[in-house]
């Protein structure tokens, strides 16, 4: 330390503990903390940095909470205009990418034996540089969407190396871009804002789940339907689709149209709109007529399997609404006429006045846009012809996500050198000759410009944990080696220089530069050449229409590496960890299969095997399989990391702990490598046949029934009842149940001398079931992921879960040993989500029965849990009426955070030992975190100072937490809706601290009455 003076030493300490520990080797980079700017790291005090989420193209702003130099929690950046402080489950858990044990620790080179062997950066880069030097014109770069700075470096490198660059995203939304271009002449992805619409016609977009900006849209949708302020119930949504998907469960009406009929419906609606509104000035009316000539309302209804009246009623509603909008089909329903479909939808939207309001068309950015399937075909052809010497692959996994029919994997064999920049093991990297691992987003610099006026920075929050190197730096070095005109300095400098027009430190601190930019309105240019609708027949001869839909968490498969996303149940089916084949009960009966029976699904393109999940919410002529599973590489993505504990209980699920064995099946294998009119990738339209294999492989189903048996767990009320409320208190939503035996005020369930009684209000009408809260809770509270074998045995450790019920329920069912949810009905919608954390009862059944007082009532009304005192009798869990207690059957705390994952643990929360009980604590560590500053300042904890992790994450603001003793608090205000509020199972007099607000049924035709 002699050459280090005091000033430098303090500087080093200021950038982080990790930096101080390794202050040598590489130049020190300075990180600028956001909320607090400590002179040095104070152990026990979190430091927050602003960054940007790179998990999906929405580019939400992040606040990274770091403790002692390592990020432990991601939260939304409240200043960021897109997500406004909220973050979805995928974003929450993307933190884990930095700590996953299956990261590449250093560069890997394929050795003589054919396997990847560890190498050094010098060797690997020298090897690649030599290859690149001789591969001018024969080098290709294939990779996912990246930020402008990295994109710029890649482009510079491409020039230096004489390389072709293809931006590849499995969900590239080519049709959306091309269809928008056809109508408005602008090749960009429209920005949707549900809060500006009063009627949404959803043609299967699934915008709340896997759309372009789900966190933002979920907030806007919930705000647009705020029954507290808008007695009409706000925006309505009519959702089309053969399957009850995530977004449809939040709709007001579900029209179960056949898969593949989206184009017909879109054209029929567009035609009706054009007929009513006429073609606007300056648009070639004949062209529009020609474009719409194939459309026909009656024929569309037939194609969709609907009554003609149903469809024309939707058209009527569209024309009568003030601000209607039609959302084009999402990935799952992207068919062979996808671009035309989008064009028809956009044409109608323009005529309906939606464009510029609920749909904004931003200017095209051009660069960095994802390529279409047609472009990829060019690459594959070049590869097959041996015209590719070096293929650089970054931020994507084409071996997994391209249809096998395309022949990409075989073509890889003809490429001289395949280089992967993957930080995590995946199928593509494992078939590469050279792996130059990139930093993870938490370790990287970068930026993002998701839409006009919004620029945000990706800021590293931890020193690289392993011997990895930023993709930008690798390319800069390689480019310079090739004599190219590369930007100056390191990639960090490149990013900083690109931001030289603004105050860099200020931008870093707030996460970017956010300004209101008025987007120029676009006019209809209407170039419909090559577009139009013609009734088409589906490909393949199978009896079922195959719907391959993006998994809510796994998306295009990139989420599969994150164990949390595997374990948190899919919000719609409540299935975990594996692939499934959804089919109707009728189809299952016909095929003589039931829950968990393995079937073979075959299309002309391929076949897969997966277990059946029968459900009511899918058409008889349709089967659905989620995209995202079927990885054969990765600790959690494949079966490699699956433990064997207890597998014998339901029979072994097979292949536990075996590397190379896929978890579930990759449905992409069933899809043809076809493209739409404009070269975009087609995901829908395949026909499949299904045969029974006779084998059984149990699925991990976290909730066995959607029948609440009239127990009023998830209550519902109607607008009429809400309106009628007030004069007769007893006949509100609770008209069908008697007065509770005891009325109580949760605020009294604490020590009378205490200023606090912590409580929560959960608005089920705002909850859309997205499970971001669950993910936040996992990360915040060090909750172990237990794996599929254990999940099958209902041993997941979630402290908060989203229960999902359909309707009020009846007394049927419950007798089977393998129950499955069965109350969904085609075309009916009464799905009710109810988040279930510990209710922190005032008179808690768990407390009385614990022999050791390990669970006890604290002075502020919380049910405390002293892990050290727990002997593990589990009586508390038996007696908990809400079933929120979780038991450590194995030593999850040690075994289930392998490798680096232990560094991700939140130091404020105890890691639980084998044999102890645990449960939601209302994030007591956050309460205590707020208490000390309050004490120092001689005041009480302010309202809003404590946010539980679930509340903080919830995109729709469905959760409010606070002090029930404080009459001015938000939580008291939020709960003050007697017409909707209820306590769960209040007749048991457990006096819970959580008040639920009943969901509101907005239309008479909704629900199954």
């Amino acid at each position: 330390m002699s050459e280090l003076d005091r000033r430098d030493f303090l500087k080093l300490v200021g950038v982080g503990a990790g930096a101080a520990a390794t202050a040598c080797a590489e130049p020190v980079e300075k990180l600028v903390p956001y909320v607090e700017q400590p002179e040095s790291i104070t152990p026990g005090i979190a430091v927050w940095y602003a960054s940007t989420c790179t998990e999906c193209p929405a580019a939400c702003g992040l606040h990274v909470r770091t403790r002692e130099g390592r990020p432990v929690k991601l939260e939304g950046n409240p200043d960021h205009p897109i997500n406004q402080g909220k973050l979805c489950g995928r974003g929450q858990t993307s933190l884990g990418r930095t700590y996953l044990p299956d990261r590449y620790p250093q560069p890997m080179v394929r050795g003589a034996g054919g396997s990847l062997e560890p190498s050094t950066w010098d060797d690997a880069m020298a090897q690649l540089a030599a290859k690149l030097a001789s591969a001018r014109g024969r080098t290709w770069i294939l990779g996912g969407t990246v930020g402008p700075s990295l994109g710029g470096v890649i482009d510079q490198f491409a020039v230096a190396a004489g390389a072709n660059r293809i931006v590849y995203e499995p969900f590239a939304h080519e049709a959306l871009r091309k269809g928008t271009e056809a109508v408005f002449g602008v090749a960009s992805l429209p920005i949707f804002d549900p809060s500006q619409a009063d009627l949404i016609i959803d043609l299967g977009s699934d915008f709340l789940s896997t759309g372009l900006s789900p966190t933002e849209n979920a907030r806007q949708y919930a705000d647009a339907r705020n029954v507290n302020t808008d007695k009409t119930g706000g925006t309505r949504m009519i959702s089309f689709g053969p399957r009850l998907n995530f977004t449809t469960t939040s709709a007001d009406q579900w029209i179960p149209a056949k898969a593949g009929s989206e184009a017909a419906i879109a054209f029929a609606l567009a035609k009706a709109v054009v007929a009513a509104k006429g073609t606007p000035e300056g648009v070639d009316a004949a062209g529009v007529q020609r474009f719409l000539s194939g459309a026909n309302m009656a024929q569309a209804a037939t194609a969709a399997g609907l009554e003609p009246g149903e469809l024309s009623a939707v058209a009527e509603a569209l024309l009568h609404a003030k601000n209607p909008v039609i959302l084009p089909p999402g990935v799952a329903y992207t068919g062979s006429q996808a671009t035309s479909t989008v064009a028809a939808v956009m044409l109608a939207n323009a005529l309906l006045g939606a464009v510029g309001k609920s749909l904004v068309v931003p200017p095209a950015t051009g660069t960095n846009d994802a390529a279409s399937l047609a472009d990829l075909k060019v690459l594959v052809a070049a590869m097959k012809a041996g015209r590719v010497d070096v293929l650089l692959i970054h931020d994507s996994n084409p071996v997994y996500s391209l249809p096998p029919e395309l022949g990409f994997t075989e073509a890889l064999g003809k490429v001289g050198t395949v280089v992967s920049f993957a930080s995590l093991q995946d199928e593509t990297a494992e078939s590469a000759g050279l792996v130059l691992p990139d930093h993870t987003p938490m370790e990287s610099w970068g930026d993002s410009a998701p839409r006009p006026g919004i620029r945000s920075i990706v800021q590293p929050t931890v020193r690289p944990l392993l011997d990895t190197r930023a993709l930008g730096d690798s390319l800069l070095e390689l480019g310079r080696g090739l004599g190219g005109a590369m930007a100056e300095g390191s990639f960090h400098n490149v990013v900083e220089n690109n931001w030289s027009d603004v105050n860099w430190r200020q931008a870093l601190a707030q996460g970017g530069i956010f300004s209101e930019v008025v987007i120029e309105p676009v006019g209809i240019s209407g170039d419909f050449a090559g577009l139009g609708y013609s009734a088409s027949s589906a490909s393949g001869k199978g009896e079922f229409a195959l719907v391959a839909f993006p998994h809510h968490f796994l998306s295009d498969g990139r989420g599969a590496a994150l164990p949390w996303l595997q374990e948190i149940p899919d919000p719609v089916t409540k299935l975990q960890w594996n692939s499934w084949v959804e089919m109707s009960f009728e189809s299952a009966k016909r095929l003589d299969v039931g829950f968990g029976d393995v079937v073979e699904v075959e299309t002309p393109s391929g076949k897969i095997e997966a277990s059946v999940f029968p459900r009511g919410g899918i058409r008889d002529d349709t089967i659905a399989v989620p995209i995202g599973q079927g990885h054969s590489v990765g600790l959690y993505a494949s079966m490699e990391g699956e433990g064997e504990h207890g597998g014998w209980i339901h029979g072994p699920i097979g292949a536990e702990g075996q590397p190379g064995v896929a978890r579930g099946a990759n449905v992409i294998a069933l899809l043809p490598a076809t493209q739409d009119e404009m070269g975009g990738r087609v995901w829908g339209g395949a026909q499949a046949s299904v045969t029974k294999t006779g084998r059984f492989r149990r699925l991990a189903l976290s909730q066995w029934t959607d029948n609440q048996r009239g127990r009023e767990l998830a209550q519902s009320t109607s607008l009429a009842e809400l309106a009628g409320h007030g004069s007769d208190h007893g006949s509100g939503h609770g008209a069908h149940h008697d007065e509770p035996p005891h009325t109580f005020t949760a605020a009294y369930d604490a020590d009378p001398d205490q200023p606090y009684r912590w409580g929560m209000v959960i608005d089920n009408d705002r909850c859309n079931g997205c499970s971001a809260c669950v993910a936040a809770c996992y990360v915040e509270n060090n909750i172990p992921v237990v794996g599929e074998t254990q999940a099958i045995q209902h041993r997941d450790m979630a402290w908060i879960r989203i229960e999902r019920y359909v309707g009020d329920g009846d007394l049927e069912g419950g007798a089977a040993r393998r129950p499955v949810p069965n109350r969904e009905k085609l075309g009916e919608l009464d799905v009710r989500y109810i988040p279930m954390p510990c209710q922190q009862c005032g008179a808690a059944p768990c407390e009385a029965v614990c022999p050791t007082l390990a669970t006890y009532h604290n002075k502020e009304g919380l049910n405390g849990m002293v892990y050290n005192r727990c002997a593990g009798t589990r009586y508390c869990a038996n007696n908990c009426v809400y079933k929120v207690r979780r038991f450590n059957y194995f030593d999850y705390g040690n075994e289930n955070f392998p490798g680096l994952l232990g560094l991700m643990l939140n130091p404020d929360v105890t890691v639980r030992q084998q044999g102890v009980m645990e449960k939601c604590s209302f994030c007591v560590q956050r309460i205590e975190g707020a208490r000390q500053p309050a004490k120092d300042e001689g005041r009480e904890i302010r309202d809003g100072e404590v946010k539980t992790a679930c509340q903080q994450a919830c995109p729709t603001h469905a959760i409010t937490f606070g002090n029930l003793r404080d009459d001015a608090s938000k939580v008291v205000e939020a709960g003050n809706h007697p017409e909707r509020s209820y306590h769960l199972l209040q007749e048991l007099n457990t006096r819970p601290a959580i008040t639920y607000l009943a969901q509101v049924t907005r239309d008479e035709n909704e629900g199954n009455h």
Partner: protein
Amino acid sequence: MAPPATAVADSLASPERPRDSRANIDIMAPTHGVQWPYFLALGAAVLGVLQALTVLLYQTYVGLGVAGYQQPVFWGVYIVTFVFWIGIGHAGTLISAILFLFRAKWRNAVNRGAEALTVFAVITAALFPILHLGRIWKLYFLIPYPNQRALWVNFKSPLLWDVFAISTYASISIVFFYIGLIPDIAIARDRATGVKKAIYTVLALGWQGTGPQWKAHSRSILHLSGLATPLVLSVHSVVSWDFAMSIVPGWHATIFAPYFVAGAVFGGFAMVINILIPVRRIFRLERYLTEYHFENMSRFILFTSTICGYAYAAEYFIAWYSGVEYEQTTFWLRAFGPYWISTWCMITFNVIFPQLLWIKKLRTNLPFLFVLCLFINLGMWFERYVIIIGSLSRDYISGSWGIYVISPVELSVLAGSFCWFSMWFLLFLKVFPVIAITEVKELEIHARDHGGAH
């Protein structure tokens, strides 16, 4: 039927060993010599215990996940088996204490076996709440002991009551058993040589059979009977409150205490019969354990079976009559849900089969009784299984409903518990007389002096 003592009244003196009595010789016979079936059984029992110990070590090491627990079923076979063995432990004290107080002289031939069964059943039962703990090594947390951290236990918890109820019951049972044994140990002492004699001498506490000693002995027995009698009722009542004090549908019922006590006596008597029939045959004790005893025990079984039947019916009736959907659903699904086999086994074995005992011929048909009692024991195990698993798997939040499947680990521990119990009982047979010699003699003398008439 006359007490069997009259039949042996003339045999007080043995022709071979005039200074010894025939009862001494017959009843002490099992304690020496080599009976192959005995050693085979003992060997099997010890092996069974060893395998269960191994499995338990494994379970403790890797965690309770190797048992079949699945949310929401947090108690499984271990608690089922705990209640089962506690129930078994009831017959002994009932026979020793309550029937003693009621002067039911026929109990004298069976009370020793029944007391031993009680002690060993309680020892077996007491293991289960321990080995079902998540952290066995924190067992002492359940005991209120003064400590500088001022940690105390929760006296509101039925589990804590259990700790006291079981430990009290176990200590009284052991003392009762031992005091009753003293005169017989003295007999063994007088007949033994070498090391055995030394051990018996210590255990006999200087028993000489003097008048004051007999007086003190019978006073002790009387007082201990008085102490033990309420325990017979209390211990299983307390165990039942583990369930009744909770809020779980199907558990939260006032009928539980009497229902469990009746079931315990019922199951306990069945186990006594199951054990004494082979013992009687293997050790040729037919003279002392006669059909008369078995018929009396059969009557008890018939009586308690009927009480159980009433309790089952009352549970279902109240579940329906209460109008509470949670209760109704739980009970409906007990009978027609995933555990219907257990429920119908329970009803058939515990209520329907024992009704055959109305037939006098069957009451004295030992092979029939043996088989019937096996079924009753199975039925009583199922009863607890139905109550525990049936209720837990179908409680308030229907979305959290689950199922429970017994794991191989639990099965081997269950089997091990029978081996553990058998091991102790077999060792007891080899060391102490299985029939209370002095009490049989008392009966014989009584019969000789009074011509057998009471």
